[in-house]
């Protein structure tokens, strides 16, 4: 079974695990422990192992119960991490534990807009919103999260490879916000042949193979027991 966000990630220390599975998760004094753990997640650039959804949700729940502990920056980071998570539902799960007040904060609001663009596959608007404004001297909303860009690109590439069998390189450039050279490098890395017209051929996998299938019935052995036993009696 493929792992979901709800499985225990290999990088979760035992201390955190016992915190999450016991009643201590309601103890407001433990908020600091979970916040530290989040900061460690942010510092880890490896996109496979750096997201512990359950721990972050526990932290948000603690904020829900103790509004005086709320740290908007922490929430921003939790949401930013959920944004690039491989499972699409994570961001929403985090949102359910917040409140309208929190959502009206500027950086949280920006994250919500980014998420709308990302989930609506409006990548060009997304990149513009993230890095667009030239005169922006405020910190980027995804500051302090190692490997954000890579994780993001991984997500987008995953979507592209599921949808397209062949795609124009120019389109890919726009979607992942990289220039022509970088895209070519990417193709080499993933072993995608690109022909002279700039069309990249993507490998076929179950998601992007459009094949008419007929779901055949599978007869279980148990269904035949009565017949077989009757046959034996004769």
């Amino acid at each position, binding site marked *: 079974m493929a792992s979901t966000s709800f499985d225990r990630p290999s990088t979760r220390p035992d201390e955190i695990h016992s915190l999450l599975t016991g009643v201590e998760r309601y103890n407001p004094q433990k908020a600091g422990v979970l916040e530290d753990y989040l900061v460690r997640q942010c510092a880890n650039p490896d996109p496979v192992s750096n997201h512990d959804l359950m721990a972050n949700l526990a932290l948000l729940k603690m904020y829900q119960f103790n509004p005086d502990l709320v740290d908007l920056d922490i929430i921003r980071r939790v949401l930013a991490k959920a944004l690039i998570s491989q499972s699409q539902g994570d961001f929403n799960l985090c949102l359910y534990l917040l409140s309208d007040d929190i959502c009206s904060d500027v950086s949280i609001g920006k994250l919500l807009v980014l998420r709308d663009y990302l989930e609506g596959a409006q990548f060009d608007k997304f990149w513009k919103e993230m890095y667009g404004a030239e005169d922006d001297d405020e910190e980027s909303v995804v500051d302090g999260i190692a490997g954000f860009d890579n994780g993001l690109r991984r997500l987008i590439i995953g*979507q592209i490879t599921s949808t397209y069998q062949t795609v*124009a390189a120019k389109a890919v450039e726009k979607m992942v916000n990289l220039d022509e050279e970088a895209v070519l490098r990417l193709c080499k890395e993933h072993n995608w042949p690109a022909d002279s017209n700039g069309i990249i051929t993507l490998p076929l996998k179950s998601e992007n193979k459009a094949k008419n299938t007929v*779901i055949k019935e599978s007869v279980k052995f148990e269904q035949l027991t009565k017949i077989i036993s009757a046959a034996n009696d004769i």
Partner: protein
Amino acid sequence: MYQENYDDVEFGGDVDLVANSYANSNLVEGELDEEELIMQAQAGVQSIPEPVRNFLANLHRNLANCNVGDLAYNYENQFVRLTDKFYAKGPWPEPQYVAALVGDDGLFLTLYRELYYRHIYSRLHPSMETRFRSFENYCDLFNYILNSDGPLELELPNQWLWDIVDEFIYQFQSFCTHRSRVSKRSPEEIELLKENAQVWNTYSVLNVLYSLIQKSSICEQLEAGQNGGDVIEAAGDFGVRPLYKMLGYFSIIGLVRVHCMLGDYTMALQTLENVELGNSRALFTRVTACHVSVYYYVGFAYLMMGRYADAIQSFVHILTFVSRTRQYHQRSYQFDAVNKKAEQMYALLAIAVSLSPVRVDESIHSYLREKYGDQQHKMQRGGDEAIEIMSELYLYACPKFIMPNPPSYTDLEAASKALEPQSFQLKIFLREARLQLVIPTLRSFLRLYTTMDLDRLSTFLDLAPAELRNQLMVYKQRCRQIKWVGSPDLLKGESTSTTDLDFALQEDMIFIAESRVGRRYADWFIRNTNKIQDLVNSIENRQKATITNGGKPKAEEEAGAVPVEA
């Protein structure tokens, strides 16, 4: 009781006054002398009708003798009938008058008070005073159960135990909603709330539920049951007794409900980690209301998590159960409550099926089409109308959400303008739903073709090609959901495609593929093979019987044999 549509209408101060004097005759203590008090008490006792007095005496006796069967009859039948007959519009007799009848039995009075307050909540309007007292009563009850030295001898029918837990959570939710509506609270009430922050405190409620679970070692018991271990050993002294075991078990279900009310759907599903949902003899099936509750909250949690396929499966399962057992529950007093929940689930099912079209069971499908067919059509077409209808159905069917904390009493203005948790959850859900609606709309178009040019499709749909490209990507993303495949952990699952329509893009050309279900012939053949086998067997048996009858008479088997026709 499921009083989900109960609205906190304020009747001003009058009801308070009446309820106060009813519940609190200590007010007049200083004015009357002892004799008058005794006379008043006697008058109170006399005013209790004869059948009710008998009922109370029976109840008391059965409780003392741990006569669970009779208790069940008292509780499920007599209590309801007497309520309808005598107390349809007013509260049951004062607990202090009842005390005189039962010789001041503390435990009985606590349980009686629970019923008394429950009745007020369901038929009348509880005042702030009533709410406080009811909370204190629950504290008494749970203290008694949780802090006794050894396991109690008490036994109550399962229905009653479930109702205690259910009502406890219901009153908690009612209180949270009541206190967060600051604009409707009078200044005295706000003062009262400020001073008594411990009443119906979220932590206390959670504490009760977790303690009941821990005391009964119910999680260990369930785990042992699943893995084939020794359940009795895992239960410990307390968990072995049905009182603790069932209370612990119902607390698990209660926790699921509380987590959903707070918007924590992952915790809700995680809490059920040892409860086997597929097991038709699981403990929750013993009380129908509990059974329905479990599936409702599980389905709702899945719906909010975006796992529409799982939500649909959950709802369909319980709705088939309810419709099949409808005739057995006609007379049960829970019938209304169960029905109401079923109706809400149909609404949620309508939403889920519109967002993620799948085939459902025939009878459910026809009922759904009858009731919500119109709305479903509109929802599948997308657009603002779809969102409007979805909001309407959602608000009808969702559980009552709560804020775990009191509103800020210092900034009442802001508190009264704050978005209600209901609306907040709806807002987030709608955001998801808007994206998900891409699926039914695109699907209806793509189904008609095997290949299609992107530009042509975009003119059909009246969208810019770039926009359409985005929508196609979204479709791809959204048609994969995690589906539960039967592991004990409800959160796990496999990523599967949930629509029967798939496609791939080659630059600007869309290649569409459909998956259809092949003809199922195995079941038909098996059934008919068995039928004919049975037929052959019965003919052969008859033959044998006639032969043996014609020959030597056989003593034993003659009883059912075919009479001899010589």
